[in-house]
């Protein structure tokens, strides 16, 4: 009966044909979608890592720029005359002050600073008077999380070394 044929459900043949077609399509697209999904996940992780490292680098360079003077320097951190300290605690880059430690970035594989004097000569951070001679600092930050790695390098010049101050506070 022709009218009934239009309203019937699947036949077994139709169902099997559909499943075969869907399986073929799914097989073709699955690897693409999985790769895209993985890439998206990696990108999300990388974005978080880059953002974290970038903000940490901004903060470190900012502290160097605005500190009234440096009280102590080393190849892996520095202390401002205000008592604020920037340095590593394990694999976490921290900013420590009188209120405690604030993490700037986690998963830090390398954090290094090289200092230069006003004539561009490298300052030996081990010298007792090294902090007073710093005129430029090159900062290197490498962050690794899982398979992702991000490296950034920046330069900061302490503004106090050439801005004009009237006070006697240092």
């Amino acid at each position, binding site marked *: 009966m022709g009218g009934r044929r239009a309203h019937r459900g699947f036949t077994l043949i139709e169902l099997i044909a559909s499943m075969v077609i869907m399986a073929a399509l799914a097989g073709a697209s699955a690897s693409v979608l999985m790769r895209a999904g993985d890439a998206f996940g990696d990108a999300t992780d990388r974005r978080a890592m*880059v953002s974290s490292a*970038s903000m940490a*680098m901004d903060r470190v360079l900012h502290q160097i720029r605005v500190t009234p003077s440096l*009280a102590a320097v080393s190849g892996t951190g520095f202390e401002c005359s205000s008592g604020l300290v920037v340095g590593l605690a394990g694999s976490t880059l921290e900013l420590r002050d009188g209120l405690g430690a604030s993490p700037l970035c986690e998963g830090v594989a390398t954090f290094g600073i090289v200092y*230069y004097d006003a004539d*561009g000569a490298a300052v030996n951070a081990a010298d007792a008077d090294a902090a007073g001679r710093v005129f430029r600092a090159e900062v*290197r930050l490498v962050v690794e999380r899982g398979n992702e790695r991000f490296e950034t390098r920046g*330069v900061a010049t302490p503004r106090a070394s050439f801005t004009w101050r009237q006070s006697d506070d240092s």
Partner: protein
Amino acid sequence: MRPGRRVSATRRGTTLVELIAAIVLLGIAVPPLVATLSTALENQSERVDREHALRLAEAVLETVLADAYGGSTSIDISADGYADTVGDRLTSIDAFYASLGMDWELAVEGPFDEAGVVTGTDADHFWRATTTVRYRAGRADEDTNFAVSTLLTVFETINDPVVFQPHPFGWSTAHQQYGVDGVPRDPYRWRTTDDDVSVYSPWSNKPIDFEQDLGPDAAPWSMALTVKNFDDDGLPSWYTNFQVDVYINGVKQRVNLPASDTEWHTVWFDIGEQSGELDIELRWRNDAYRKGQYDANIQIGGLQFAQDPTPPTGGP
């Protein structure tokens, strides 16, 4: 199905045609979604490139700032070819960003006036440094140029004398220098002590200038500086010497002067064969300060010249 009951269209099964149509629709919709995902990933890559480019541009400009206000007489940002020398001081930074496919150029323009017109007139002491970072972003066919500028001024000497007290060997007249670094514009100063017998500075790297006429005949001369610390907090135990760069007619020599909170120390040093008017600039280099604990502030009580120096005793 029982006879006489109509089959509702909403309860019937799906036909093969409908199923295939749905699959086709999915086939049309998915590729753009995947493409969108790919674009998002590419944007992420470009964001990282921009992050690197900005960091590199900042590094170059920070170096220019340090050169402009660092007080080195061997570096002149207004000199021809200055831009070529910046890379020499950025070797590590330069190599890292070059490995990422980035290179940079630096242009220093000026002097220009308040309208931004380059006049070349020294009185218009504003300068502009522009760094352009060039890199190839993602799958782009062309390079991306990323430029950042900063405002600078070149130091200018003004005649605003601070006068030392007379001394048996004769004191010089101190001139302040001032500059504008694009941020604050207040003149700084080496200050005279309340009794006007000496000058001191709480900040290192700031120049103080002197002039001394040694007469027309060339002869070997010595120069002496008499120094003491100026602050109630005192020096830290490890601070044994004031390091002062002495520039005589632009030629630098580093002098180490014993540092004490209580005693004046005078140190004579050879300045070679000299004659005529000397332009002398002093820059104290090794500040040390920790709030409430110690504070190194160099105090200069004497500046002396002699052909046959006999170190004087005491301070000013």
